[in-house]
């Protein structure tokens, strides 16, 4: 590829994005590949070639719906793009034969999130049915009823009825979506079948009493290109995703103006602490020492979080663009990607993005003829959670043990090799190009008073649809878990949501209506963290969960300072004792005392936040600890299960009689 110029980028910006209609996009990221997406990809290529079709089979990153992997998006036969989930290699030929060749959808694989459409402009061609209620699924019965009704009216060959996999609506009875308009009806009962066919399909009228008016609360800014562009292709990013237009916008301004734009946007660090990004940049910029450095922190160590992996794998160029803008704003000529070695696919794709950008003249000396020089390298992590901490990360890049050092001096004053350094999280950097392109004010339009923009969460654990979610700040936890991710697995009752990984805390059911923001989560004794969100149902023991996270922090403690090294170990011993039913009443007080000491006296964030899981479970679930101490583990488990029932007192009585 020949080096780009500013004029080339300007020409690309002026040109409207090409509209692509015919394609098969296979989502190839680590999660998808684990589920067999590579075999699916090959099967699609073979099936398309065998059918002598010209439809391109493309590789894209993940859209985020990891519960349905492998996911494939198909656009063909004049239909709007359709997502298929659970597409193993054997399903590929079926999709090619049905969808590509005859415009029919296949059963049990379609994912069609409710769009909130309220108009039937074109005539209905497909009807998707899914029973989202509890109990015996009536999807097949309704499919049959619709087919019969359509036959009766002689429409059977014009409208196809297919069973869906997911319609973006949960716990609302039988849900029906009419394609291509995307009108969704919920709580459909048997008598409604004839009405829908007569009025909506024949008469193109929308039935207001059944209509689902709510729209998806998600806003995709960080994940804007994930799942729609080829992560291994620079031309794809340039032509179809306004690639490097944010950089062009930044280079047209002074660094101070870029920082000002970030200030307007209100973007705060997405790594967890929420330090304003503009302030970090301007603190680094005002340092006299040269050269300065900028680091992209992709050491996603929280177990249960995979946002950064997904973004790096699905849209590496946008993170690189963000890093370059950061470099321009603070006056740095060197950038580093610090990525976990456990993410080989992400490393491979970032490596490729770097070499492509170098080839296109987007990295190197005098970029785009503007006099700005910048280059970036990759450094691998090696499995140390503490390296997500700024000073430890710097030590690790320098090739040393990743032990944190006391701050101040902050990295913005003395960082990598003593140079002023700005460290930003992957998600923060992925936001930056969009902010530069569309303006800080646009970005500030999302979110709450103190916390602007959107946040990506990886919702996992006992949840129906474990997936990535990007919502505006201020969305409630309940909306994220129930409206977007479909609620708790096996329709059990939710007990708590854990945010912030091993440094965070649990948020019990009664506080789930809290809007998500840095401050509100802190008030509840948890933290935003990097965005891992783990759903726990009533069968999960909170003492066990606290022990799990504490064990993680004890393993990961670097051992440099005593409160963290000794305190963590002692707490783990006490918790272990309690969970084996050998606890004493004064253990809880001892736990609280050690927690306080660790919070106050530890050197770095790891030690200061390690007690959070223990403290927050003590705060909301201290009866569970007491049950363990008084009656032992099996009694505690019974209590925990019964506590979600209507009458805790009676449940206790039965539990004790059963125990006796």
């Amino acid at each position, binding site marked *: 590829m020949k080096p780009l110029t500013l004029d080339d980028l300007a020409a690309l910006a002026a040109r409207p994005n090409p509209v692509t209609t015919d394609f098969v996009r296979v989502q190839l990221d*680590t*999660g998808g*590949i*684990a*589920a067999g997406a590579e075999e699916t990809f090959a099967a699609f290529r073979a099936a398309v070639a065998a059918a002598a079709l010209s439809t391109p089979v493309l590789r894209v990153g993940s859209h985020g*719906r*990891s*519960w349905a*992997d492998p996911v494939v998006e198909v656009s063909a036969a004049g239909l709007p793009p359709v997502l298929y989930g659970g597409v193993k290699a054997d399903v590929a030929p079926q999709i090619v034969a049905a969808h590509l060749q005859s415009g029919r959808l296949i059963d049990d694989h379609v994912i069609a999130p409710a769009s909130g459409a309220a108009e039937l402009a074109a005539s209905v061609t497909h009807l998707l049915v899914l029973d989202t209620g509890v109990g015996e699924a009536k999807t097949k019965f309704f499919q049959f009823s619709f087919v019969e009704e359509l036959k009766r009216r002689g429409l059977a060959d014009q409208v196809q009825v297919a069973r869906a996999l997911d319609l973006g609506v949960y716990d609302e009875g039988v849900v029906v979506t009419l394609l291509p308009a995307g009108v969704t009806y919920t709580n459909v009962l048997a008598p409604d079948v004839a009405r829908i066919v007569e009025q909506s399909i024949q008469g193109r009228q929308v039935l207001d009493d059944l209509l689902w008016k709510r729209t998806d609360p998600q806003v995709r800014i960080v994940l804007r290109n994930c799942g729609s562009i080829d992560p291994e292709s620079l031309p794809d990013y340039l032509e179809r995703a306004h690639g490097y237009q944010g950089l062009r916008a930044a280079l047209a301004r002074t660094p101070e103006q870029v920082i000002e734009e970030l200030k307007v946007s209100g973007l705060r660090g997405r790594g967890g602490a929420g330090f304003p990004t503009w302030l970090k940049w301007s603190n680094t910029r005002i340092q006299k020492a040269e050269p300065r450095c900028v680091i992209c922190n992709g050491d*996603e*160590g*929280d*177990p*249960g*979080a*995979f946002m950064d*992996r*997904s973004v790096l794998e699905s849209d590496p160029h946008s993170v690189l663009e963000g890093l370059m803008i950061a470099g321009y704003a603070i006056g740095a000529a060197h950038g580093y990607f610090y990525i976990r*070695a*456990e*993410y080989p696919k992400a490393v491979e794709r970032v490596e490729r993005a770097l070499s492509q950008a170098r080839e296109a003249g987007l990295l190197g000396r005098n970029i785009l003829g503007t006099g700005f020089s910048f280059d970036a*390298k990759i*450094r*691998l*992590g*090696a*499995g*140390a*959670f503490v390296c997500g901490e700024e000073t430890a990360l710097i030590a*690790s*890049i*320098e*090739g*040393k*043990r*990743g*032990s944190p050092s006391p701050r101040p001096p902050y990295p913005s004053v003395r960082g990598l*090799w003593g140079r002023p350094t700005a460290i930003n999280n992957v998600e923060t950097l992925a936001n930056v190009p969009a902010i530069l392109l569309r303006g800080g004010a646009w970005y500030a339009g999302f979110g709450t008073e103190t916390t602007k923009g959107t946040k990506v969460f*990886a919702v*996992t*654990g*006992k949840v129906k649809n*474990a*997936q990535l979610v990007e919502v505006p700040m201020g969305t409630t936890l309940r909306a994220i878990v129930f409206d977007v991710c479909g609620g708790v697995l096996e329709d059990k009752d939710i007990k708590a949501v*854990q945010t912030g*990984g091993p440094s965070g805390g649990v948020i019990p059911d009664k506080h789930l209506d809290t809007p998500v923001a840095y401050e509100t989560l802190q008030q509840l004794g948890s933290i935003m963290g990097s965005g*891992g969100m*783990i759903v*726990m149902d009533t069968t*999960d023991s909170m003492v066990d969960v606290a022990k*799990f*996270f504490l064990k*993680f922090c004890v393993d990961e403690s*670097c051992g440099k300072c005593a409160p963290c090294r000794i305190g963590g170990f002692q707490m783990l011993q006490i918790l272990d004792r309690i969970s084996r039913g050998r606890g004493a009443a004064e253990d809880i007080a001892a736990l609280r005392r050690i927690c306080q000491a660790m919070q106050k006296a530890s050197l770095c964030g790891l030690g200061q936040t390690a007690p959070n899981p223990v403290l927050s479970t003590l705060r909301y679930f201290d009866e569970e600890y007491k049950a363990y101490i008084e009656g032992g583990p099996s009694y505690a488990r019974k209590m925990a299960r019964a506590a979600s029932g209507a009458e805790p007192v009676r449940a206790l009585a039965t539990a004790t009689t059963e125990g006796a």
Partner: protein
Amino acid sequence: MLEEVERKHGYIPQQVGDEVSRLLELKLERIKRAQAKLETGIRRDVQRHVARWSGEEGNLIMILHAIQNQYGYVPREVAMELSRELGVRLARIYEVITFYHYFKLQPPGKHNVTVCNGTACYLKGAAGLLAELRTQLGVGEGQTTPDREFHVDVVRCIGCCGMSPAVVCDGKTHGRVKPADIAGFLAAARATSPEAKP
């Protein structure tokens, strides 16, 4: 062998003694040559890795990554050679190796089974999978079977939380694993010879 000769002849003839010592010397020679070859092999590898990363500050961790990718662990001889090549004290290299979980000092087994123990996998039953592995193989976390066939390990999180619980068997990730599936993986791994390391 000499005992056999003694039994046959009643004594050890001079010629036999000479022949045996000649053979032994030959064998020693061969071992020495193989060792030298191995050492030059190590030296060449280390020099190659160091050359790849020379001129970059803080390259130790990246070189260790390259070494581990090649050997599957960091052998002591290689670490010693690296210390000579970089002019860094061996203690400093070991300080780094032992700090990071990713670097291993023991050779891996022929087949590697890694159980993810991230929070999502933990909640969905990673402990059950580990117990099943222990039943099947008789080894637990971080251990290798006595015949060096299987090495069982636990990782923090492989980022496949949507597919939890996950198990990585010889580089291939399996999602939504049930304890009943474990026997199948092990049989499949036994049936295939491990891929040669590139």
